[in-house]
């Protein structure tokens, strides 16, 4: 793929940081917070309605791009499960010294098990480091959310998992 085309299917890190749904570096440091990778004006306000803390703002004009208020966001992950575009994640940079905790939506079967080691996948679909499943929360709406421990260096790259048999 040419670079411009890649951009249309998987945003670069620089572009992500410009999004109103993406907290800045300082805000990311200060605890678990939702990152909303929703770059286009789509008529949708599901995340805003889903947030129990009023941390996501879209407004009356539902085509606006969602804006995150990191002060109000507690990183509960409700929006991760509810977003129809599966475009919201929760990032917790303070999980351990080496690892960050990432919450992802996962609509595939079978679900991984807690403690399982799986392959991290970038937002481009490429394989990344092996990651550990920290928790699996089946949600009633059919979009389970999974917490994974990922190397801090890959926290803005990994956005999915691949369950494959590898002898670690």
């Amino acid at each position, binding site marked *: 793929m040419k670079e411009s085309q890649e951009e249309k299917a998987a945003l670069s890190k620089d572009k992500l940081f410009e999004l109103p749904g993406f907290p800045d570096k300082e805000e990311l440091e200060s605890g678990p917070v939702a990152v909303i990778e929703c770059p286009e004006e789509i008529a949708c306000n599901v995340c805003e309605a889903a947030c129990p803390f009023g941390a996501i703002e879209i407004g009356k004009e539902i085509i606006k791009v969602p804006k995150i208020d990191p002060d109000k966001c507690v990183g509960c992950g409700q929006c991760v499960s509810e977003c129809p575009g599966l475009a919201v994640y929760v990032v917790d940079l303070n999980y351990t010294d080496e690892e960050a905790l990432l919450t992802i939506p996962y609509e595939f079967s079978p679900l991984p098990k807690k403690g399982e080691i799986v392959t991290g996948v970038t937002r481009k*679909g490429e394989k990344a480091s092996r990651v550990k499943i920290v928790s699996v929360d089946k949600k009633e709406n059919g979009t389970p959310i999974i917490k994974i421990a990922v190397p801090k260096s890959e926290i803005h790259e990994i956005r999915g998992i691949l369950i494959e048999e590898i002898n670690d």
Partner: protein
Amino acid sequence: MLNKEVAVVGGGPAGLTASIELAKRGVNVTLIDENLQAGGQLLKQTHKFFGSEEHYAGVRGFNIAKKLIQEANNQSVDFLLEGSIYSVYEGKILAVKKGKSTQLISPEKVIYATGASEKVINFPGWTLPGVMGAGAVQTFVNQHKVLPGRKFTIVGSGNVGTIVAYQLLQAGAEVTAIVEAAQEVGSYYVHANKAIRSGDIPIFTSHTVKKAMGNESVDSVKIVEVNENWQPVPGTEKRIETDVVCLAVGLRPRTKLTSLTGCQTTYSSTFGGEVPLHDKSMETSINGVYVAGDVAGVEEASIAIEEGRLAGVSVASSMNYISSSTAADQKQEIRNRLGLLRGGPYGEEGAKEKERIRSIFNERVTRRESRSVKR
């Protein structure tokens, strides 16, 4: 001949909401659909929908269908399922075939919510088993839980193409490629991204299908790069192994019945093809014949839901089930919501196109004055 107050043709999102709004206001409404079950394309949509609460946003398509059918039943909408309309006489007399019997239904008003049909592209080998539309793939995979192959190549990277790609991955299939003739991916970013990050799918932009190959069914597809003038570039062919070539190259309004009725049309590339002219209340050039949803221009399901409501309220008002001032308020509320749905770079084009269709309607259709005197 069966006399009815209102017939709604097509039980997808627009037809269901139109019927609900009518029945709610006391109108006797018959909803005719040729399938075993109402719900239209919603039945095969397993993903959660965009929109806001009024459009069941965040709910999966098939569950939206369930909710709407439940509501229609609560409001005593009369369903005529497995009923195909094979002709229309004198503007509004519908000839309906159900099983081996036929009947004529003569409603005072008709709302056509007949949706859209898939476009196809032709190439050598396109009649081989294994070449099919995205709608068929969704029927197989999402409705009947059957994979019609293991490997899929998807032609078209619009929302339908990328959504089907993701759903195929969910079903355990391999998506070997998404082929797109334009220079850029056409779908919303979020749909494209959830597909590629779930399956590392190669996307071939500026490419089209040259040939589908195989003896008894498809075993591979040859794709070729196209230049800015959409012409194949010799020497750029690639062969991709695949069992299914899934065509997701757009939809066109399904206007056979409105054309049979004699509704005037205009061509709209934005809306996918010939569109029946309609006014702000969704009434066509034929008195008492309305349209709603994709047949009035291919857009989103959320828009179809609102257009169905608009047509329903308009018809109820024209039959004096609600006062014209109440109707005006209710229609305005719906139009406001439609305005919000048609915002942003994706929706704006639709808003402009609706405006253009309305202005053509006003130029060409003059029956308005004579009828308003009658009222």
